[in-house]
C-alpha cells in the first residue's frame, strides 16, 4: 500500500536538467532554526522544541522542558506517604485517578497490604473510567491540533458526563485524590452505580460517532497514516510504553503482564498496531475505550454487593470517616497518621501501573519512618519525549505537533 509508506522517502528537489527549471537562479540554502513553544497552543502546556529545518523538513530537534518543574520528588521526601497523594493529582492533571492508583499501589507494595475485594473492583472500575476520559481528551485535542475541530466538541461532551461523576464521587473533577493507601476514600453512592450502568449503553454508539468523523476524513488520514513511524525495536529501546509502544506491535501492557487490581478477573484484549504510525496509535486508543467499557461492565457484574472498601491495618490505613467524628480511638488514629505518618519498613520497591499514557511507575526507597527517603516517578510523558528527535527527523514542521500529540504528553507529568 503506497500511502502507508514512510513519508520521509518523499523529498522534492529541483531538477537542474529539467527544461523548465534549468534557467532558475541557484538559490542559497542554509539551515533554519525555529523555536516552537513554549507558548504554542498545541504543546499541551509549556513545552519548547528547537527545530533545525531544511526547507520545511525537520533535520534535528532539541526538546527544552522543565517549565513546569515543581520539584515533586523533593517534596515527597519532606512529607508523609499519605500527604503525597494530592501531589500525584498534579502530575498528570488530566487523569488524576490513575496517578492516585499508581501511587497507592506502590505504597501498598511497600507496606505489603492487601486491598479488600470490593475496593479492588471499585478502583479498577474508576481507573477504567479515567482511562476513557484520558482517551477522550486525547482524541479531542489531537484532532483539534491536526485541524479537525468537530470531534473536540463531541468528545468533550461525553468527557463532561464522566467528570460530573467524579464530582459526585469525591467533590473534585480533576484533582480527585479519591484513592487511599489500602483502599478508597468512601464507597460509591448507589445512584452513581446506576448512572454507570446507563452509560455502558450510551457510550459505544458515541465511539462510532467519533470514528465516522475521523476515519473517512481525508485530512485526518493524510496527517496520521505513515506519520511518526517507529519500529518496535526502537520503541522498546527508547522505553516507550502504553499505546505509543503498542502501536508498533508490542503487546506490552502491565494489566496483562503484571496484572493487578481486578484485571486478572476480567476478560479483555489488548489491541496491538502494525505500522507504528500515528494512525495505529489513534486506532489503539479507540479500541481501548471499547475494552474499557467491557471491563467496567464485568466489574459491575462481579463486584461484591457489600464489604469493606479499606484494608483493616490500623497502623497504616485511615479509619472510616464517620467514626473519626464519634470515636476517640479513630480520631487518634487519624491524627497520628496525618501528623507523623506510618512507620514504613526499610527497603525499596518499584511498582509500575498501566496508566492510559503508558507505564506510570513509582520507585520508593524507604529507610524506615514516616517519609519516603527517595521517591522517583517514572512518568511516561517524560520518557516519550526522549524519542521525539528520533521520530521527528525528516518530517514537516506541522507534523511535529502530530508527533508529540500522539504520545499524549501532559507537561505536569513530564516536568514533575
Amino acid at each position, binding site marked *: 500500500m503506497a500511502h502507508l509508506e514512510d513519508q520521509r522517502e518523499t523529498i522534492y528537489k529541483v531538477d537542474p536538467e529539467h527544461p523548465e527549471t534549468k534557467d532558475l537562479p541557484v538559490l542559497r540554502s542554509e539551515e533554519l532554526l525555529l523555536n516552537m513553544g513554549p507558548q504554542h497552543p498545541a504543546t499541551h502546556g509549556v513545552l519548547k522544541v528547537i527545530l533545525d529545518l531544511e526547507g520545511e523538513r525537520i533535520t534535528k530537534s532539541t526538546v527544552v522542558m522543565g517549565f513546569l518543574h515543581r520539584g515533586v520528588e523533593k517534596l515527597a521526601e519532606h512529607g508523609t506517604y499519605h500527604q503525597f497523594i494530592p501531589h500525584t493529582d498534579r502530575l498528570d492533571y488530566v487523569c488524576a485517578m490513575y496517578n492516585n492508583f499508581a501511587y497507592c499501589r506502590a505504597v501498598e507494595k511497600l507496606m505489603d497490604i492487601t486491598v479488600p475485594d470490593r475496593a479492588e473492583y471499585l478502583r479498577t472500575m474508576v481507573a477504567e473510567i479515567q482511562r476513557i476520559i484520558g482517551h477522550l481528551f486525547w482524541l479531542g485535542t489531537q484532532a483539534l491540533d491536526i485541524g479537525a475541530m468537530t470531534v473536540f466538541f463531541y468528545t468533550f461532551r461525553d468527557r463532561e458526563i464522566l467528570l460530573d461523576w467524579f464530582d459526585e464521587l469525591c467533590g473534585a473533577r480533576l484533582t480527585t485524590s479519591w484513592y487511599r493507601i489500602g483502599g478508597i476514600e468512601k464507597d460509591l453512592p448507589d445512584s452513581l452505580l446506576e448512572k454507570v450502568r446507563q452509560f455502558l449503553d450510551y457510550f459505544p454508539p458515541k465511539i462510532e460517532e467519533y470514528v465516522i468523523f475521523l476515519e473517512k476524513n481525508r485530512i485526518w488520514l493524510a496527517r496520521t497514516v505513515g506519520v511518526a513511524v517507529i519500529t518496535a525495536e526502537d520503541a522498546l529501546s527508547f*522505553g516507550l510504553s502504553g499505546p505509543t509502544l503498542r502501536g508498533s506491535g508490542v503487546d506490552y501492557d502491565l494489566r496483562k503482564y503484571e496484572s493487578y487490581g481486578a484485571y486478572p478477573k476480567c476478560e479483555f484484549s489488548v489491541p496491538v498496531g502494525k505500522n507504528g504510525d500515528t494512525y495505529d496509535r489513534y486506532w489503539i486508543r479507540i479500541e481501548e475505550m471499547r475494552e474499557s467499557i467491557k471491563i467496567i461492565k464485568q466489574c459491575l457484574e462481579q463486584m461484591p454487593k457489600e464489604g469493606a472498601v479499606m484494608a483493616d491495618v490500623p497502623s497504616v490505613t485511615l479509619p472510616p470517616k464517620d467514626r473519626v467524628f464519634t470515636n476517640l480511638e479513630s480520631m487518634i488514629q487519624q491524627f497520628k497518621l496525618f501528623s507523623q505518618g506510618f512507620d514504613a519498613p526499610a527497603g525499596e520497591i518499584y511498582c*509500575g501501573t498501566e496508566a492510559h499514557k503508558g507505564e506510570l511507575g513509582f520507585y520508593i526507597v524507604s529507610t524506615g519512618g514516616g517519609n519516603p527517603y*527517595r521517591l522517583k516517578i517514572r512518568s511516561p510523558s517524560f520518557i516519550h*519525549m*526522549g524519542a521525539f528527535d528520533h521520530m521527528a527527523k525528516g518530517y514537516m514542521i506541522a507534523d511535529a505537533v502530530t508527533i508529540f500529540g500522539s504520545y499524549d504528553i501532559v507537561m505536569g507529568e513530564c516536568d514533575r
Partner: protein
Amino acid sequence: MHPLAESLQARFPQAVVSVYEWRGDVAVTITRDQVHEVCRYLREDPKMDFDYMVHVSSVDWPDDEERFEVVWEVYSIRHRHRIRIKARVPEQDCFVDSMVDLWRGAEFMEREVFDMMGIRFNNHPDLRRILMPDEYDEGWPLRKDFPLQGKGWRDTFDFLNEGTT
C-alpha cells in the same frame, strides 16, 4: 537467590557486590567499573534479553563512603523478567558509564539524574540540564544537603517582591 542474580553472580563473580531481594523485586549492585559490561551482557545475551529500559534513578546516601547510588531498571518483554542494576559512585570523581549505547531511552533519564543529583555519565552524547534551567547554578536539587526551599535564587526574582516594598 533469584535465578537472574545467580546467573550474574556466576558470570561476573568479581563485579557483583551485593544482591538484594524484597517484595519480589531483585536488585544487584555492581562495581562501577564493570556496570557497563554487565549491562551489555543483560542486553545482548539471548537468555537475558533485557530490551526495555524502565527507569534510571539515583539515591543520595550522604553518610556513606561512596555517596551516590545510580539505579537502572530494565525489563525483558520476551522473558517477562525485570532486574534492577545499581552502582555506587563516590562524591569526588562522580562518574559512571552511560547506558545510552545499549538503551537509547537512557539518554533523557540519565540527563535527569545528572540534573538532579550531579552524577556525570561517561560517553553520554548530550549531558546537559534537562528540568532545571541551563544557567541554574545553585547545585543539585535532589541531594540531601540541598534545602527544600532552595538556596535563595528565587528571592532574587523581581516579580516575586513587587508591591511588598
